[in-house]
Protein backbone atom coordinates (compact mmCIF):
# COMPACT_ATOMS: atom_id res chain seq x y z
CA UNK A 1 0.00 0.00 0.00
CA UNK A 2 1.27 3.43 -0.80
CA UNK A 3 0.00 6.61 0.76
CA UNK A 4 1.29 9.61 -1.04
CA UNK A 5 0.23 13.10 -0.36
CA UNK A 6 1.91 15.88 -2.22
CA UNK A 7 0.85 19.42 -1.78
CA UNK A 8 1.97 22.46 -3.66
CA UNK A 9 0.62 25.74 -2.52
CA UNK A 10 -0.62 28.20 -5.04
CA UNK A 11 0.89 31.57 -4.47
CA UNK A 12 -1.96 33.56 -5.87
CA UNK A 13 -4.59 32.30 -3.48
CA UNK A 14 -2.72 33.74 -0.55
CA UNK A 15 -1.95 37.15 -1.91
CA UNK A 16 -5.08 38.81 -0.65
CA UNK A 17 -4.23 38.22 2.98
CA UNK A 18 -2.60 41.21 4.60
CA UNK A 19 -0.71 40.22 7.68
CA UNK A 20 1.90 42.12 9.53
CA UNK A 21 2.91 39.46 12.01
CA UNK A 22 3.16 35.78 11.45
CA UNK A 23 0.31 34.05 13.23
CA UNK A 24 2.29 30.82 13.17
CA UNK A 25 5.23 32.09 15.13
CA UNK A 26 4.91 33.98 18.41
CA UNK A 27 7.17 37.05 18.55
CA UNK A 28 10.50 36.51 20.27
CA UNK A 29 10.89 37.73 23.82
CA UNK A 30 13.09 37.19 26.87
CA UNK A 31 10.13 37.76 29.15
CA UNK A 32 8.77 34.49 30.47
CA UNK A 33 5.36 36.14 30.85
CA UNK A 34 5.23 36.26 27.05
CA UNK A 35 5.63 32.51 26.95
CA UNK A 36 3.04 31.11 29.37
CA UNK A 37 3.10 27.44 30.22
CA UNK A 38 1.27 25.74 27.38
CA UNK A 39 -1.88 23.69 27.77
CA UNK A 40 -1.08 21.59 24.73
CA UNK A 41 -3.79 23.15 22.59
CA UNK A 42 -1.59 25.98 21.26
CA UNK A 43 -0.61 25.78 17.62
CA UNK A 44 3.07 25.46 18.50
CA UNK A 45 2.48 22.78 21.14
CA UNK A 46 -0.37 20.71 19.80
CA UNK A 47 1.81 17.92 18.46
CA UNK A 48 4.07 17.64 21.51
CA UNK A 49 3.25 15.24 24.39
CA UNK A 50 3.81 17.74 27.21
CA UNK A 51 3.98 15.13 29.97
CA UNK A 52 7.02 13.59 28.42
CA UNK A 53 8.88 16.90 28.76
CA UNK A 54 9.27 15.79 32.39
CA UNK A 55 9.01 19.17 34.03
CA UNK A 56 11.19 21.21 31.70
CA UNK A 57 8.40 23.72 31.11
CA UNK A 58 8.38 24.66 34.81
CA UNK A 59 12.07 24.03 35.31
CA UNK A 60 14.17 25.92 37.81
CA UNK A 61 17.75 27.05 37.46
CA UNK A 62 20.10 24.14 37.87
CA UNK A 63 23.78 23.53 38.42
CA UNK A 64 23.78 20.45 36.23
CA UNK A 65 25.86 20.69 33.07
CA UNK A 66 26.61 18.57 30.09
CA UNK A 67 30.24 17.56 29.71
CA UNK A 68 31.80 19.50 26.86
CA UNK A 69 34.61 18.03 24.87
CA UNK A 70 35.72 20.44 22.21
CA UNK A 71 38.02 20.52 19.29
CA UNK A 72 38.74 24.11 18.33
CA UNK A 73 40.85 24.88 15.27
CA UNK A 74 43.40 27.62 15.65
CA UNK A 75 41.89 31.08 15.90
CA UNK A 76 38.53 29.84 17.17
CA UNK A 77 37.64 30.63 20.77
CA UNK A 78 35.00 29.43 23.20
CA UNK A 79 34.44 31.77 26.15
CA UNK A 80 31.92 32.25 28.93
CA UNK A 81 29.82 35.38 28.71
CA UNK A 82 26.85 36.68 30.65
CA UNK A 83 23.29 36.46 29.39
CA UNK A 84 23.31 40.25 29.06
CA UNK A 85 26.39 40.09 26.86
CA UNK A 86 24.75 37.45 24.69
CA UNK A 87 21.85 39.81 24.13
CA UNK A 88 24.22 42.68 23.39
CA UNK A 89 26.07 40.64 20.81
CA UNK A 90 22.78 40.40 19.03
CA UNK A 91 21.68 36.84 19.62
CA UNK A 92 18.17 35.99 18.49
CA UNK A 93 15.77 36.24 21.43
CA UNK A 94 13.86 33.14 22.57
CA UNK A 95 10.68 32.36 20.70
CA UNK A 96 9.15 29.77 22.98
CA UNK A 97 9.01 28.92 26.64
CA UNK A 98 11.81 26.35 26.78
CA UNK A 99 14.28 28.68 25.04
CA UNK A 100 13.26 31.60 27.27
CA UNK A 101 13.73 29.35 30.31
CA UNK A 102 17.13 28.29 28.99
CA UNK A 103 18.29 31.92 28.85
CA UNK A 104 16.82 32.68 32.26
CA UNK A 105 18.17 29.58 33.99
CA UNK A 106 21.50 28.80 32.35
CA UNK A 107 23.34 31.44 34.37
CA UNK A 108 25.34 32.74 31.44
CA UNK A 109 26.17 31.72 27.93
CA UNK A 110 29.03 30.36 25.89
CA UNK A 111 30.32 32.28 22.92
CA UNK A 112 31.94 30.39 20.09
CA UNK A 113 33.80 32.90 18.02
CA UNK A 114 35.13 32.37 14.51
CA UNK A 115 36.92 35.63 13.65
CA UNK A 116 36.32 37.54 10.45
CA UNK A 117 38.15 36.40 7.31
CA UNK A 118 39.24 33.10 8.88
CA UNK A 119 38.70 30.09 6.64
CA UNK A 120 38.72 26.85 8.59
CA UNK A 121 39.68 23.65 6.87
CA UNK A 122 38.60 21.42 9.73
CA UNK A 123 35.34 21.49 11.65
CA UNK A 124 34.80 22.98 15.08
CA UNK A 125 33.64 19.97 17.03
CA UNK A 126 31.58 20.31 20.20
CA UNK A 127 30.78 17.01 21.91
CA UNK A 128 28.14 17.39 24.58
CA UNK A 129 27.48 14.48 26.87
CA UNK A 130 24.86 14.06 29.59
CA UNK A 131 25.13 11.60 32.47
CA UNK A 132 21.54 11.05 33.49
CA UNK A 133 18.00 11.99 32.64
CA UNK A 134 17.65 13.05 36.30
CA UNK A 135 19.75 16.09 35.44
CA UNK A 136 17.90 19.13 34.19
CA UNK A 137 20.36 21.09 32.08
CA UNK A 138 19.98 24.51 30.51
CA UNK A 139 22.08 25.49 27.53
CA UNK A 140 22.78 28.93 26.13
CA UNK A 141 25.16 29.27 23.22
CA UNK A 142 26.04 31.96 20.72
CA UNK A 143 27.96 31.00 17.62
CA UNK A 144 29.46 33.98 15.86
CA UNK A 145 30.78 33.37 12.37
CA UNK A 146 32.76 36.49 11.44
CA UNK A 147 32.32 38.27 8.15
CA UNK A 148 33.89 36.57 5.13
CA UNK A 149 34.93 33.61 7.23
CA UNK A 150 34.21 30.01 6.43
CA UNK A 151 33.47 27.48 9.13
CA UNK A 152 31.85 24.15 9.89
CA UNK A 153 30.54 23.62 13.41
CA UNK A 154 29.34 20.23 14.64
CA UNK A 155 27.39 19.84 17.86
CA UNK A 156 27.09 16.25 18.94
CA UNK A 157 24.73 15.24 21.75
CA UNK A 158 25.12 11.90 23.49
CA UNK A 159 24.26 10.26 26.79
CA UNK A 160 21.16 11.39 28.60
CA UNK A 161 19.69 14.50 30.20
CA UNK A 162 16.66 16.68 30.26
CA UNK A 163 18.19 19.40 28.15
CA UNK A 164 16.73 22.65 26.98
CA UNK A 165 19.01 24.85 24.96
CA UNK A 166 18.96 27.96 22.90
CA UNK A 167 21.58 28.55 20.28
CA UNK A 168 22.02 31.56 18.05
CA UNK A 169 24.14 31.39 14.95
CA UNK A 170 25.15 34.85 13.80
CA UNK A 171 26.57 34.64 10.34
CA UNK A 172 28.49 37.73 9.25
CA UNK A 173 28.25 39.38 5.85
CA UNK A 174 29.66 37.23 3.06
CA UNK A 175 30.48 34.38 5.42
CA UNK A 176 29.92 30.74 4.74
CA UNK A 177 28.69 28.66 7.68
CA UNK A 178 27.88 25.00 7.98
CA UNK A 179 26.30 24.04 11.28
CA UNK A 180 25.25 20.52 12.15
CA UNK A 181 23.52 19.35 15.27
CA UNK A 182 23.39 15.63 15.92
CA UNK A 183 21.00 14.20 18.50
CA UNK A 184 22.40 10.80 19.24
CA UNK A 185 21.00 10.52 22.76
CA UNK A 186 20.25 7.47 24.87
CA UNK A 187 16.67 6.24 24.84
CA UNK A 188 15.42 8.26 27.83
CA UNK A 189 16.79 11.72 27.01
CA UNK A 190 14.55 14.75 26.51
CA UNK A 191 15.94 17.54 24.35
CA UNK A 192 14.31 20.82 23.47
CA UNK A 193 16.53 22.83 21.21
CA UNK A 194 16.07 26.13 19.53
CA UNK A 195 18.62 27.02 16.89
CA UNK A 196 18.12 30.46 15.41
CA UNK A 197 20.22 31.69 12.56
CA UNK A 198 20.80 35.23 11.43
CA UNK A 199 22.13 35.31 7.90
CA UNK A 200 24.28 38.29 7.00
CA UNK A 201 24.22 40.12 3.73
CA UNK A 202 25.30 37.79 0.90
CA UNK A 203 26.20 35.13 3.44
CA UNK A 204 25.32 31.51 3.02
CA UNK A 205 24.55 29.03 5.73
CA UNK A 206 23.67 25.39 5.88
CA UNK A 207 22.07 24.04 9.02
CA UNK A 208 21.54 20.30 9.44
CA UNK A 209 19.57 18.69 12.24
CA UNK A 210 19.99 14.97 12.67
CA UNK A 211 17.93 13.19 15.31
CA UNK A 212 18.27 9.51 16.05
CA UNK A 213 18.10 9.06 19.80
CA UNK A 214 16.16 10.33 22.80
CA UNK A 215 12.68 9.73 24.14
CA UNK A 216 11.53 13.16 23.05
CA UNK A 217 13.44 15.53 20.82
CA UNK A 218 11.95 18.80 19.67
CA UNK A 219 14.19 21.05 17.62
CA UNK A 220 13.60 24.44 16.11
CA UNK A 221 15.62 25.66 13.19
CA UNK A 222 14.77 29.31 12.58
CA UNK A 223 16.28 31.54 9.97
CA UNK A 224 16.09 35.26 9.44
CA UNK A 225 18.20 37.65 7.46
CA UNK A 226 20.29 40.68 8.43
CA UNK A 227 20.46 41.97 4.87
CA UNK A 228 19.64 41.12 1.28
CA UNK A 229 21.28 38.33 -0.69
CA UNK A 230 21.60 35.77 2.08
CA UNK A 231 20.91 32.11 1.50
CA UNK A 232 20.00 29.35 3.92
CA UNK A 233 19.82 25.64 3.38
CA UNK A 234 18.06 23.78 6.17
CA UNK A 235 18.53 20.03 6.14
CA UNK A 236 17.23 17.39 8.46
CA UNK A 237 17.35 13.67 8.89
CA UNK A 238 15.58 11.71 11.58
CA UNK A 239 14.84 8.14 12.46
CA UNK A 240 12.13 7.44 15.03
CA UNK A 241 11.91 4.07 16.72
CA UNK A 242 9.26 2.51 18.92
CA UNK A 243 7.81 5.08 21.31
CA UNK A 244 10.07 7.94 20.21
CA UNK A 245 8.77 11.43 19.59
CA UNK A 246 10.93 13.43 17.21
CA UNK A 247 9.77 16.88 16.24
CA UNK A 248 11.42 19.38 13.93
CA UNK A 249 10.05 22.86 13.50
CA UNK A 250 11.42 25.09 10.81
CA UNK A 251 10.79 28.78 10.40
CA UNK A 252 12.23 30.63 7.46
CA UNK A 253 11.45 34.30 7.94
CA UNK A 254 12.11 36.15 4.72
CA UNK A 255 12.45 39.63 6.17
CA UNK A 256 14.90 40.92 3.56
CA UNK A 257 14.72 41.06 -0.22
CA UNK A 258 16.50 38.63 -2.57
CA UNK A 259 17.07 36.03 0.12
CA UNK A 260 16.80 32.30 -0.37
CA UNK A 261 15.77 29.37 1.73
CA UNK A 262 15.84 25.74 0.77
CA UNK A 263 14.56 23.15 3.21
CA UNK A 264 14.82 19.37 2.93
CA UNK A 265 13.94 17.10 5.84
CA UNK A 266 13.76 13.35 5.50
CA UNK A 267 12.68 10.89 8.13
CA UNK A 268 11.98 7.23 8.67
CA UNK A 269 9.74 5.66 11.27
CA UNK A 270 9.58 2.17 12.66
CA UNK A 271 7.94 0.47 15.62
CA UNK A 272 4.81 0.96 17.68
CA UNK A 273 4.23 4.55 18.72
CA UNK A 274 7.07 6.08 16.73
CA UNK A 275 5.95 9.64 16.11
CA UNK A 276 7.57 12.32 14.01
CA UNK A 277 6.47 15.87 13.48
CA UNK A 278 7.71 18.26 10.86
CA UNK A 279 6.43 21.81 10.74
CA UNK A 280 7.78 23.92 7.94
CA UNK A 281 6.82 27.55 8.35
CA UNK A 282 7.82 30.06 5.75
CA UNK A 283 6.96 33.74 5.99
CA UNK A 284 7.53 36.07 3.08
CA UNK A 285 7.24 39.60 4.40
CA UNK A 286 6.20 42.60 2.34
CA UNK A 287 9.77 43.82 1.96
CA UNK A 288 11.00 40.43 0.82
CA UNK A 289 10.77 40.98 -2.91
CA UNK A 290 12.68 38.69 -5.22
CA UNK A 291 13.08 35.90 -2.69
CA UNK A 292 13.09 32.22 -3.45
CA UNK A 293 11.98 29.47 -1.11
CA UNK A 294 11.33 25.79 -1.34
CA UNK A 295 10.65 23.29 1.40
CA UNK A 296 10.25 19.58 1.29
CA UNK A 297 9.57 16.88 3.85
CA UNK A 298 9.57 13.16 3.09
CA UNK A 299 8.76 10.40 5.49
CA UNK A 300 9.24 6.72 4.98
CA UNK A 301 6.98 4.58 7.14
CA UNK A 302 8.72 1.25 7.66
CA UNK A 303 6.28 -0.60 9.90
CA UNK A 304 2.73 -0.50 11.21
CA UNK A 305 1.91 1.61 14.26
CA UNK A 306 3.91 4.75 13.36
CA UNK A 307 2.62 8.23 12.90
CA UNK A 308 4.14 11.04 10.86
CA UNK A 309 2.78 14.58 10.95
CA UNK A 310 3.99 16.85 8.21
CA UNK A 311 2.71 20.40 7.98
CA UNK A 312 4.12 22.93 5.53
CA UNK A 313 2.84 26.47 6.04
CA UNK A 314 3.46 29.34 3.71
CA UNK A 315 2.51 32.91 4.58
CA UNK A 316 2.99 35.35 1.77
CA UNK A 317 2.74 39.13 2.02
CA UNK A 318 4.24 39.95 -1.35
CA UNK A 319 3.82 38.28 -4.70
CA UNK A 320 6.92 39.91 -6.16
CA UNK A 321 9.06 36.84 -5.63
CA UNK A 322 11.13 34.44 -7.69
CA UNK A 323 9.47 31.35 -6.36
CA UNK A 324 7.85 29.64 -3.43
CA UNK A 325 6.92 26.01 -3.16
CA UNK A 326 6.63 23.08 -0.89
CA UNK A 327 6.15 19.35 -1.01
CA UNK A 328 5.31 16.86 1.65
CA UNK A 329 5.02 13.12 1.22
CA UNK A 330 4.60 10.29 3.66
CA UNK A 331 4.69 6.82 2.21
CA UNK A 332 5.32 3.21 2.90
CA UNK A 333 7.77 1.23 0.86
CA UNK A 334 7.06 1.62 -2.80
CA UNK A 335 6.02 -1.84 -4.02
CA UNK A 336 7.21 -1.06 -7.53
CA UNK A 337 10.69 -0.19 -6.29
CA UNK A 338 10.86 -3.40 -4.29
CA UNK A 339 9.61 -5.41 -7.26
CA UNK A 340 12.19 -3.87 -9.55
CA UNK A 341 15.05 -4.71 -7.19
CA UNK A 342 13.74 -8.20 -6.43
CA UNK A 343 13.31 -8.89 -10.13
CA UNK A 344 17.10 -8.49 -10.28
CA UNK A 345 17.57 -11.29 -7.78
CA UNK A 346 17.96 -9.06 -4.73
CA UNK A 347 16.19 -10.47 -1.65
CA UNK A 348 13.29 -8.61 -0.13
CA UNK A 349 15.21 -7.61 3.00
CA UNK A 350 18.17 -6.39 0.97
CA UNK A 351 15.84 -4.50 -1.38
CA UNK A 352 14.28 -2.69 1.55
CA UNK A 353 17.71 -1.85 2.89
CA UNK A 354 18.76 -0.44 -0.47
CA UNK A 355 15.65 1.69 -0.75
CA UNK A 356 16.10 3.20 2.73
CA UNK A 357 19.79 3.73 2.15
CA UNK A 358 19.00 5.51 -1.06
CA UNK A 359 16.36 7.61 0.67
CA UNK A 360 18.90 8.96 3.16
CA UNK A 361 21.98 8.78 0.99
CA UNK A 362 21.05 11.79 -1.11
CA UNK A 363 20.67 13.90 1.99
CA UNK A 364 23.77 12.64 3.79
CA UNK A 365 25.86 13.58 0.78
CA UNK A 366 24.51 17.13 1.01
CA UNK A 367 25.50 17.56 4.65
CA UNK A 368 29.05 18.49 3.71
CA UNK A 369 30.82 17.07 6.77
CA UNK A 370 32.86 14.19 5.30
CA UNK A 371 34.04 13.18 8.79
CA UNK A 372 30.42 12.36 9.67
CA UNK A 373 29.14 10.74 6.48
CA UNK A 374 30.33 7.26 7.29
CA UNK A 375 29.10 7.43 10.85
CA UNK A 376 25.68 8.60 9.70
CA UNK A 377 25.35 5.79 7.18
CA UNK A 378 26.43 3.34 9.89
CA UNK A 379 23.80 4.70 12.25
CA UNK A 380 21.13 4.36 9.57
CA UNK A 381 22.33 0.80 9.05
CA UNK A 382 22.09 0.10 12.76
CA UNK A 383 18.56 1.51 12.92
CA UNK A 384 17.56 -0.59 9.93
CA UNK A 385 18.88 -3.75 11.52
CA UNK A 386 16.16 -3.39 14.15
CA UNK A 387 13.42 -3.99 11.61
CA UNK A 388 14.09 -3.74 7.95
CA UNK A 389 17.02 -6.08 7.74
CA UNK A 390 15.23 -8.71 9.72
CA UNK A 391 13.36 -11.18 7.50
CA UNK A 392 10.05 -9.46 6.95
CA UNK A 393 7.39 -11.49 8.70
CA UNK A 394 4.82 -8.79 8.05
CA UNK A 395 5.84 -8.16 4.47
CA UNK A 396 3.59 -5.40 3.31
Amino acid at each position, binding site marked *: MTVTDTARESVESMLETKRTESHLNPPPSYDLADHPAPTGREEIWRFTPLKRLRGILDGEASEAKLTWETSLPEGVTLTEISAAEAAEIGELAPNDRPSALAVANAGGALLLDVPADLELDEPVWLRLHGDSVDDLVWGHLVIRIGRFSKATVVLEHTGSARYSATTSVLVGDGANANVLTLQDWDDDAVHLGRDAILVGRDASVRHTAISFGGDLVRMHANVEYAGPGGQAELLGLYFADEGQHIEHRIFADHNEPRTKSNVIYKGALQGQGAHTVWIGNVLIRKVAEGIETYEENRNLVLTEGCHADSVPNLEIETGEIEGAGHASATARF*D*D*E*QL*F*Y*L*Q*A*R*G*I*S*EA*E*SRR*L*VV*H*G*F*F*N*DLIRKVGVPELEEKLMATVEEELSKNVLRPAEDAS
Partner: protein
Amino acid sequence: MSTLEIKDLHVSVKTEDGPKEILKGVTLTIADGETHAIMGPNGSGKSTLAYSIAGHPKYTVTGGTVTLDGDDVLAMSVDERARAGLFLAMQYPVEVPGVSVSNFLRTAKTAIDGEAPKLRHWVKDVNKALQDLNLDPTFGQRSVNEGFSGGEKKRHEIAQLELLNPKIAVLDETDSGLDIDALKIVSEGVNRFRAQEGKGVLLITHYTRILRYITPDQVHVFVDGKIADQGGPELADQLEAEGYDKYLTKTTV
Protein backbone atom coordinates in the same frame (compact mmCIF):
# COMPACT_ATOMS: atom_id res chain seq x y z
CA MET B 1 20.10 -25.84 -21.86
CA SER B 2 17.11 -23.84 -20.72
CA THR B 3 13.46 -24.27 -21.51
CA LEU B 4 10.63 -22.06 -20.35
CA GLU B 5 7.33 -23.85 -20.49
CA ILE B 6 4.05 -22.04 -20.01
CA LYS B 7 0.96 -24.23 -19.92
CA ASP B 8 -2.65 -23.04 -19.92
CA LEU B 9 -1.78 -19.98 -17.85
CA HIS B 10 -4.71 -18.06 -16.40
CA VAL B 11 -4.02 -14.75 -14.66
CA SER B 12 -6.33 -12.18 -13.14
CA VAL B 13 -5.96 -8.77 -11.53
CA LYS B 14 -7.98 -7.23 -8.74
CA THR B 15 -10.30 -4.48 -9.84
CA GLU B 16 -13.00 -2.51 -8.06
CA ASP B 17 -15.57 -4.86 -9.58
CA GLY B 18 -13.74 -7.95 -8.38
CA PRO B 19 -11.06 -10.03 -10.10
CA LYS B 20 -10.75 -9.61 -13.83
CA GLU B 21 -9.23 -12.35 -15.93
CA ILE B 22 -6.51 -11.03 -18.27
CA LEU B 23 -4.76 -14.19 -19.42
CA LYS B 24 -7.20 -16.84 -20.51
CA GLY B 25 -5.12 -19.93 -21.06
CA VAL B 26 -1.70 -19.22 -22.55
CA THR B 27 0.43 -22.13 -23.70
CA LEU B 28 3.91 -21.46 -24.99
CA THR B 29 7.27 -23.20 -24.90
CA ILE B 30 10.56 -21.44 -25.43
CA ALA B 31 12.88 -24.29 -26.16
CA ASP B 32 16.63 -24.21 -25.77
CA GLY B 33 18.15 -21.19 -27.50
CA GLU B 34 14.94 -19.97 -29.13
CA THR B 35 13.66 -16.45 -29.56
CA HIS B 36 9.91 -15.97 -29.56
CA ALA B 37 8.12 -12.75 -30.35
CA ILE B 38 4.74 -11.96 -28.89
CA MET B 39 2.82 -9.37 -30.78
CA GLY B 40 -0.57 -7.96 -30.20
CA PRO B 41 -2.71 -4.89 -29.82
CA ASN B 42 -2.76 -2.80 -26.65
CA GLY B 43 -4.63 -4.42 -23.81
CA SER B 44 -4.26 -7.93 -25.17
CA GLY B 45 -2.38 -9.08 -22.07
CA LYS B 46 1.19 -9.09 -23.39
CA SER B 47 2.64 -7.19 -20.45
CA THR B 48 0.56 -9.20 -18.00
CA LEU B 49 2.28 -12.30 -19.33
CA ALA B 50 5.70 -10.71 -18.78
CA TYR B 51 4.91 -9.54 -15.23
CA SER B 52 3.26 -12.84 -14.32
CA ILE B 53 6.36 -14.75 -15.33
CA ALA B 54 8.45 -12.39 -13.18
CA GLY B 55 6.01 -12.68 -10.26
CA HIS B 56 4.63 -9.16 -9.86
CA PRO B 57 2.32 -9.16 -6.80
CA LYS B 58 -0.43 -7.33 -8.69
CA TYR B 59 -1.19 -10.41 -10.78
CA THR B 60 -2.80 -13.56 -9.45
CA VAL B 61 -2.25 -16.81 -11.26
CA THR B 62 -5.53 -18.71 -11.15
CA GLY B 63 -4.54 -21.68 -13.28
CA GLY B 64 -1.84 -23.32 -15.33
CA THR B 65 1.88 -23.78 -14.84
CA VAL B 66 5.16 -22.06 -15.63
CA THR B 67 8.35 -24.08 -15.40
CA LEU B 68 11.97 -23.28 -16.08
CA ASP B 69 13.92 -26.43 -16.91
CA GLY B 70 11.22 -28.34 -15.09
CA ASP B 71 11.28 -26.21 -11.91
CA ASP B 72 8.02 -24.66 -10.78
CA VAL B 73 8.49 -20.93 -11.35
CA LEU B 74 5.14 -20.00 -9.82
CA ALA B 75 6.21 -21.41 -6.47
CA MET B 76 9.21 -19.06 -6.37
CA SER B 77 9.38 -15.54 -4.94
CA VAL B 78 10.28 -12.70 -7.30
CA ASP B 79 13.97 -12.74 -6.36
CA GLU B 80 14.13 -16.54 -6.53
CA ARG B 81 12.85 -16.42 -10.10
CA ALA B 82 15.60 -13.99 -11.02
CA ARG B 83 18.20 -16.18 -9.33
CA ALA B 84 16.79 -19.21 -11.17
CA GLY B 85 17.66 -17.47 -14.44
CA LEU B 86 14.70 -15.33 -15.47
CA PHE B 87 15.16 -11.71 -16.40
CA LEU B 88 12.48 -9.16 -17.16
CA ALA B 89 13.48 -6.02 -19.05
CA MET B 90 10.71 -3.68 -18.05
CA GLN B 91 8.69 -1.37 -20.17
CA TYR B 92 8.69 1.24 -17.42
CA PRO B 93 11.83 0.79 -15.31
CA VAL B 94 11.38 2.11 -11.78
CA GLU B 95 13.34 4.97 -10.20
CA VAL B 96 15.24 4.12 -7.03
CA PRO B 97 16.46 7.49 -5.70
CA GLY B 98 19.81 7.57 -3.93
CA VAL B 99 20.86 4.10 -5.11
CA SER B 100 23.64 4.39 -7.66
CA VAL B 101 23.62 2.30 -10.81
CA SER B 102 26.99 0.78 -9.90
CA ASN B 103 25.84 -0.16 -6.39
CA PHE B 104 22.63 -1.60 -7.82
CA LEU B 105 24.41 -3.63 -10.48
CA ARG B 106 26.94 -5.01 -8.01
CA THR B 107 24.23 -5.92 -5.50
CA ALA B 108 22.19 -7.65 -8.20
CA LYS B 109 25.20 -9.53 -9.57
CA THR B 110 26.15 -10.66 -6.06
CA ALA B 111 22.60 -11.86 -5.43
CA ILE B 112 22.39 -13.75 -8.74
CA ASP B 113 25.80 -15.41 -8.44
CA GLY B 114 25.62 -16.00 -4.70
CA GLU B 115 28.99 -14.29 -4.27
CA ALA B 116 30.46 -10.87 -4.87
CA PRO B 117 32.05 -10.49 -8.30
CA LYS B 118 35.84 -10.09 -8.44
CA LEU B 119 36.31 -6.38 -8.32
CA ARG B 120 38.77 -5.91 -11.17
CA HIS B 121 36.87 -7.98 -13.68
CA TRP B 122 33.60 -6.55 -12.56
CA VAL B 123 34.59 -2.93 -13.09
CA LYS B 124 35.80 -3.86 -16.56
CA ASP B 125 32.62 -5.76 -17.34
CA VAL B 126 30.40 -2.91 -16.18
CA ASN B 127 32.35 -0.35 -18.17
CA LYS B 128 32.15 -2.52 -21.26
CA ALA B 129 28.44 -3.17 -20.86
CA LEU B 130 27.74 0.55 -20.45
CA GLN B 131 29.99 1.43 -23.35
CA ASP B 132 28.39 -1.19 -25.61
CA LEU B 133 25.04 0.44 -24.96
CA ASN B 134 26.43 3.87 -25.56
CA LEU B 135 25.99 4.93 -21.96
CA ASP B 136 28.36 7.50 -20.49
CA PRO B 137 31.04 6.20 -18.05
CA THR B 138 29.61 8.51 -15.36
CA PHE B 139 26.31 6.66 -15.71
CA GLY B 140 27.30 4.36 -12.84
CA GLN B 141 27.17 7.22 -10.36
CA ARG B 142 23.64 8.25 -11.21
CA SER B 143 20.67 7.05 -9.19
CA VAL B 144 18.89 4.08 -10.74
CA ASN B 145 16.55 5.33 -13.47
CA GLU B 146 16.26 8.74 -11.84
CA GLY B 147 16.26 11.46 -14.44
CA PHE B 148 17.08 8.97 -17.19
CA SER B 149 15.70 9.65 -20.62
CA GLY B 150 13.38 6.99 -22.04
CA GLY B 151 16.20 5.66 -24.19
CA GLU B 152 18.66 5.56 -21.27
CA LYS B 153 16.21 3.53 -19.23
CA LYS B 154 15.89 0.91 -21.96
CA ARG B 155 19.60 0.77 -22.62
CA HIS B 156 20.19 0.40 -18.89
CA GLU B 157 17.80 -2.57 -18.88
CA ILE B 158 19.79 -4.26 -21.62
CA ALA B 159 23.10 -3.48 -19.89
CA GLN B 160 21.67 -5.36 -16.91
CA LEU B 161 20.64 -8.23 -19.18
CA GLU B 162 24.19 -8.57 -20.41
CA LEU B 163 25.80 -8.28 -16.98
CA LEU B 164 23.40 -10.59 -15.13
CA ASN B 165 23.33 -12.99 -18.09
CA PRO B 166 20.17 -14.99 -17.26
CA LYS B 167 18.91 -18.15 -18.96
CA ILE B 168 15.75 -16.56 -20.30
CA ALA B 169 15.17 -12.89 -21.04
CA VAL B 170 11.66 -11.51 -21.19
CA LEU B 171 11.72 -8.15 -22.96
CA ASP B 172 8.57 -6.15 -22.36
CA GLU B 173 8.24 -3.57 -25.15
CA THR B 174 11.90 -2.72 -24.88
CA ASP B 175 11.58 -1.11 -28.30
CA SER B 176 8.83 1.34 -27.40
CA GLY B 177 9.87 4.95 -27.34
CA LEU B 178 13.28 4.33 -28.91
CA ASP B 179 14.61 6.20 -31.91
CA ILE B 180 16.19 4.16 -34.65
CA ASP B 181 19.77 4.53 -33.36
CA ALA B 182 18.83 3.49 -29.85
CA LEU B 183 16.76 0.63 -31.25
CA LYS B 184 19.81 -0.68 -33.10
CA ILE B 185 22.03 -0.38 -30.01
CA VAL B 186 19.48 -2.19 -27.87
CA SER B 187 18.96 -4.89 -30.51
CA GLU B 188 22.70 -5.48 -30.77
CA GLY B 189 22.77 -6.01 -27.01
CA VAL B 190 19.97 -8.55 -27.21
CA ASN B 191 21.69 -10.28 -30.12
CA ARG B 192 24.97 -10.51 -28.16
CA PHE B 193 23.03 -12.15 -25.35
CA ARG B 194 21.27 -14.68 -27.53
CA ALA B 195 24.38 -15.50 -29.52
CA GLN B 196 25.48 -17.41 -26.44
CA GLU B 197 24.52 -21.05 -26.29
CA GLY B 198 21.10 -22.00 -24.96
CA LYS B 199 19.76 -18.51 -24.17
CA GLY B 200 16.03 -18.01 -24.61
CA VAL B 201 14.28 -14.73 -25.41
CA LEU B 202 10.63 -13.81 -25.13
CA LEU B 203 10.29 -10.54 -26.96
CA ILE B 204 7.08 -8.67 -26.40
CA THR B 205 6.33 -5.89 -28.82
CA HIS B 206 3.59 -3.84 -30.33
CA TYR B 207 5.53 -3.09 -33.49
CA THR B 208 7.36 -5.22 -36.02
CA ARG B 209 10.23 -2.75 -36.30
CA ILE B 210 12.49 -4.44 -33.72
CA LEU B 211 12.05 -7.78 -35.53
CA ARG B 212 14.12 -6.40 -38.39
CA TYR B 213 17.09 -6.44 -36.01
CA ILE B 214 16.20 -9.41 -33.85
CA THR B 215 14.90 -12.28 -35.96
CA PRO B 216 12.56 -14.50 -33.97
CA ASP B 217 12.23 -18.24 -34.38
CA GLN B 218 8.52 -18.00 -33.78
CA VAL B 219 5.91 -15.25 -33.71
CA HIS B 220 2.75 -15.49 -31.60
CA VAL B 221 -0.18 -13.15 -32.02
CA PHE B 222 -1.77 -12.26 -28.72
CA VAL B 223 -5.40 -11.21 -28.64
CA ASP B 224 -7.68 -10.96 -25.64
CA GLY B 225 -5.43 -12.92 -23.30
CA LYS B 226 -4.82 -15.80 -25.63
CA ILE B 227 -2.58 -16.75 -28.50
CA ALA B 228 -4.73 -16.20 -31.59
CA ASP B 229 -2.20 -17.22 -34.20
CA GLN B 230 1.38 -18.31 -34.52
CA GLY B 231 3.98 -18.91 -37.16
CA GLY B 232 7.49 -18.16 -38.31
CA PRO B 233 9.09 -14.75 -38.84
CA GLU B 234 6.94 -14.31 -41.96
CA LEU B 235 3.92 -13.85 -39.71
CA ALA B 236 5.46 -10.59 -38.50
CA ASP B 237 5.67 -9.34 -42.07
CA GLN B 238 2.06 -10.21 -42.59
CA LEU B 239 1.11 -8.30 -39.42
CA GLU B 240 3.15 -5.36 -40.62
CA ALA B 241 1.13 -5.28 -43.85
CA GLU B 242 -2.31 -6.10 -42.46
CA GLY B 243 -2.29 -5.05 -38.81
CA TYR B 244 -4.27 -6.80 -36.10
CA ASP B 245 -7.69 -6.06 -37.56
CA LYS B 246 -8.57 -9.53 -38.66
CA TYR B 247 -7.90 -10.95 -35.20
CA LEU B 248 -9.77 -8.19 -33.46
CA THR B 249 -12.87 -8.69 -35.61
CA LYS B 250 -12.86 -12.34 -34.76
CA THR B 251 -13.00 -11.69 -31.05
CA THR B 252 -15.59 -8.97 -31.08
CA VAL B 253 -18.06 -10.73 -33.38
